[in-house]
């Protein structure tokens, strides 16, 4: 039989009569199957799919001979969106102007492929796009989430390969612009070259140092010894001054700010060891310590590189996406009609329309109605701010609960957001608080070390003037606190790497520390414990409205809100082939429902008391505020791994809570199924916030797990926030950690890892300080020989590093 896939949509519960198995996962994206999965024959075997989009993607992959993807991947594919987004806008010269570079044989663009999680995704994209006509080169990088595409504009339009990308379930997003992408790449390459030179130079310097150390009987001739020393000097100099430049410039900055910290400590130690060796070389003294200086630079660079790499992965995937500017803006024409245009085509003076939950595309002035704007990205204030008509709205703020109209005053790089993004990138280079604690230790360590050296020098001047300088120098070199400086970066590097491998992205540097301290976990229900894909189960109608009409109105109202319910209505309306009218003045009443008017008639959709003036019964009501017209019953299923995850969390001694905006009986059912006694239903975002604040008031450390816009405030208020990867961008921004895929089992694993990280960091500090407590008195007494010093430094650094590496191992299950 032919390999081609034959997709069937058992929408009419017909043909195969395949029992709608509720268990099992989509063959392509791994999401739980709906009650009626799409069955398709791919590669001779019948597989279930969650939607026809996934089935089509899988069939294409099979036909293109790329089915190895399923064997190679380590994470599930992205769900293929059925909604055919218009990609033509990518062809607009205004979009391409800033992002496309002319290269030999065509044009080049770097973009972000949303949904690319593992190396197999990148492999699939590379191979799939390379088959598209006109594509010269496609290089996807799963680590950074970027895709570099070179195409021939004469042979194809950019939107063609992007359509293919989209059909495989990956959404193209604009990266930060060609120039900045280039700059990032250059910076990464410079870091790599630095560490390469440090590694190669260190190995050579060690080799020559070895020759000098092995001359224990002082049998080497003077000229030969000096020759070896000068060669070591030659090899070490670029390591100390080129590879180690980050530490030297960092120390200079710290000293200028009069706040000596880690870099000062590192630079002092390195320069001391280096210049002391130069002095000894010139004066034909007994010892040189070039090897100590270069090894130190190399080890620290390596730890720093690993930590940066882990965080860069997290930030490239989450932060870049969250910060990627929207590709489209909605411009309102003079006649009130809306038109999607490329962001770059938006000009000062235009009127822009922003849907609820969307990002404001440019700086401007608010028109007509007052709006709620969340400006966390701009001001750090997580609460939405009420703005009146005529007030300034800033690009990057998010329209909360209701859409808004604005007159554009500044776009692109002229906006305050662009300025802030630059500031954020600067701030990102700052070290985490845990490392800042190390900075404080480092500061007094430098001072203490210099004081001790001075005291020892004075004491030896009195006791034996000929050895005074030598002993003081040895003391300074030996106390060179490799281990102390490595303690935190090594542990963080290992832990972030382990987290990222498990698909948990730490977006903030102190996320692990906060996670380790958590005592309570508060879950949102919809989209978090349940799979976020509600289904419309039943429609009851009243007052002469038929089911189709009710569905049309409800779908129109839900459109523009990002609540998962909107998808359920879209799907139901699509299944019935309904034309959905346009709703005006649509607004979200948090915790209550939606309001809007259709054809001049005001409608409400939500809780019974809000929409229809009745007692709340858990159903979703459509009405005008007083009269009921229809009631929708919405069902949803808990995620398969929710029971295991909650059980594991309880076993770790965490108290669990459920805080949902959903109906009482639904929440009670979920609470019962998961054994969470403290389940609260019908909570507005304010109530959730109050719940978390109350827990915090009792001295608990709250970890909040959520996914939606309504969770954003409570996520921002919690001690540590975990967002589900496919949730709203607003929730990502409020979160410390993001689960790359909605697998709840990763939460207990991440907490266990955070606790281990904290323990290991403390052990490292204890070891590093302990080493110095032993080494310093020995050095002060003049008992430390050069080989003993080198051994001590190497062993202490290695112990700390190896101890940290324990974090990369998976704990015995």
């Amino acid at each position, binding site marked *: 039989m032919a390999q081609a896939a034959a997709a069937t949509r058992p929408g009419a519960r017909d043909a195969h009569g395949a029992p709608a198995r509720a268990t099992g996962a989509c063959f392509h994206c791994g999401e739980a199957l709906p009650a009626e999965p799409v069955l398709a024959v791919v590669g001779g075997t019948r597989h279930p799919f969650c939607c026809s989009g996934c089935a089509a993607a899988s069939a294409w992959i099979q036909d293109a001979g790329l089915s190895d993807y399923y064997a190679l991947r380590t994470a599930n594919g992205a769900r293929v969106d059925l909604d055919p987004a218009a990609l033509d806008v990518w062809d607009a010269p205004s979009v391409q102007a800033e992002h496309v570079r002319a290269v030999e044989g065509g044009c080049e663009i770097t973009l972000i492929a949303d949904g690319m999680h593992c190396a197999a995704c*990148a492999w699939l994209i590379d191979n799939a796009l390379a088959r598209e006509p006109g594509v010269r080169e496609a290089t996807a990088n799963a680590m950074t989430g970027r895709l570099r595409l070179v195409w021939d504009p004469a042979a194809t339009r950019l939107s063609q390969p992007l359509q293919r990308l989209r059909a495989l379930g990956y959404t193209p997003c604009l990266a930060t612009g060609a120039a900045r992408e280039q700059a990032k790449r250059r910076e990464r390459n410079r870091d790599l070259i630095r560490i390469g030179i440090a590694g190669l130079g260190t190995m050579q310097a060690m080799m020559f140092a070895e020759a000098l150390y092995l001359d224990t009987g002082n049998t080497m001739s003077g000229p030969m010894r000096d020759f070896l020393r000068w*060669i070591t000097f030659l*090899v070490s100099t670029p390591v100390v001054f080129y590879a180690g430049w980050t530490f030297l410039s960092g120390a200079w900055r710290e000293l200028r700010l009069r706040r000596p910290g880690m870099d000062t400590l590192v630079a002092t130690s390195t320069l001391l060891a280096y210049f002391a060796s130069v002095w000894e070389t010139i004066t034909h003294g007994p010892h040189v310590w070039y090897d100590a200086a270069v090894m130190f630079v190399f080890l620290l660079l390596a730890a720093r590189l690993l930590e940066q790499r882990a965080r860069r992965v997290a930030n490239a995937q989450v932060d870049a996406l969250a910060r990627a500017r929207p590709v489209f803006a909605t411009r309102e024409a003079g006649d009130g009609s809306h038109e999607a245009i490329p962001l770059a085509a938006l000009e000062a003076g235009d009127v822009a329309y922003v849907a609820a939950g969307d990002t404001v595309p440019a700086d401007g002035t608010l028109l007509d109605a007052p709006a709620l704007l969340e400006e966390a990205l701009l001001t750090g204030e997580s609460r939405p701010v009420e703005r009146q008509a005529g007030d300034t709205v800033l690009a990057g703020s998010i329209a909360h609960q209701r859409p808004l109209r604005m007159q554009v005053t500044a776009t692109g790089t002229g906006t305050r957001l662009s300025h802030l993004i630059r500031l954020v990138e600067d701030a990102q280079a700052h070290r985490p608080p845990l490392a800042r604690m190390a900075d404080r230790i480092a500061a007094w360590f430098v001072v203490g070390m210099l004081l001790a050296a001075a005291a020892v020098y004075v004491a030896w001047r009195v006791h034996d003037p000929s050895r005074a300088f030598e002993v003081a120098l040895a003391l300074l070199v030996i106390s060179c606190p490799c281990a102390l400086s490595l303690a935190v970066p090594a542990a963080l590097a290992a832990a972030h790497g382990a987290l990222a491998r498990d698909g948990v992205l730490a977006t903030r540097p102190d996320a692990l520390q906060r996670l380790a301290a958590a005592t309570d976990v508060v879950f949102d229900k919809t989209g978090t414990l349940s799979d976020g894909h509600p289904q419309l189960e039943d429609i009851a109608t009243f007052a002469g409205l038929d089911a189709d009409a009710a569905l049309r109105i409800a779908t129109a109202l839900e459109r523009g809100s990002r609540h998962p319910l909107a998808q359920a209505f879209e799907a139901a309306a699509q299944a019935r082939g309904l034309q959905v009218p346009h709703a005006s003045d649509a607004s979200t009443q948090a915790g209550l429902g939606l309001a809007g008017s259709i054809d001049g008639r005001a409608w409400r959709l939500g809780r019974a008391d809000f929409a229809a003036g009745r007692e709340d019964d858990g159903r979703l009501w459509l009405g005008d505020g007083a009269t009921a017209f229809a009631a929708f019953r919405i069902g949803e299923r808990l995620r398969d791994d929710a029971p295991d995850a909650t059980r594991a969390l309880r076993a770790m001694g965490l108290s669990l809570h459920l805080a949902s905006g959903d109906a009482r009986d639904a929440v009670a059912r979920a609470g019962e199924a998961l054994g969470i006694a403290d389940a609260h239903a019908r909570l507005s975002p304010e109530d959730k916030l109050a719940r978390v604040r109350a827990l915090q008031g009792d001295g608990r450390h709250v970890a909040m797990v959520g996914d939606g816009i309504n969770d954003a405030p409570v996520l921002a208020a919690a001690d540590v926030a975990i967002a589900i990867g496919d949730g709203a961008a607003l929730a990502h921004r409020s979160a410390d950690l993001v689960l790359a895929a909605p697998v709840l089992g990763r939460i207990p694993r991440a907490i266990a890892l955070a606790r281990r990280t904290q323990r290991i960091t403390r052990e490292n500090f204890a070891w590093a300080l302990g080493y110095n407590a032993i080494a310093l008195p020995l050095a002060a007494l003049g008992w430390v020989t050069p080989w003993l010093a080198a051994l001590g430094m190497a062993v202490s650094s290695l112990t700390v590093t190896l101890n940290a590496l324990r974090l990369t191992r998976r704990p015995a299950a």
Partner: protein
Amino acid sequence: MTILLLLIPLSLLLLGAAVWAFIWAVRKGQFDDLDTPALDILREDPPPASQEPPADAD
């Protein structure tokens, strides 16, 4: 021991060559993506020349 006067400069030359090769590799983007190329070798078949599914597989 005079042979060292030859061998050590020689090792420095090798070091220079290694540094040059490393810098060249970095500039050529050899370290940009360390995961995806590793998968290519795990593929079972070369990709078919055409996307047309065979009319009758067997």
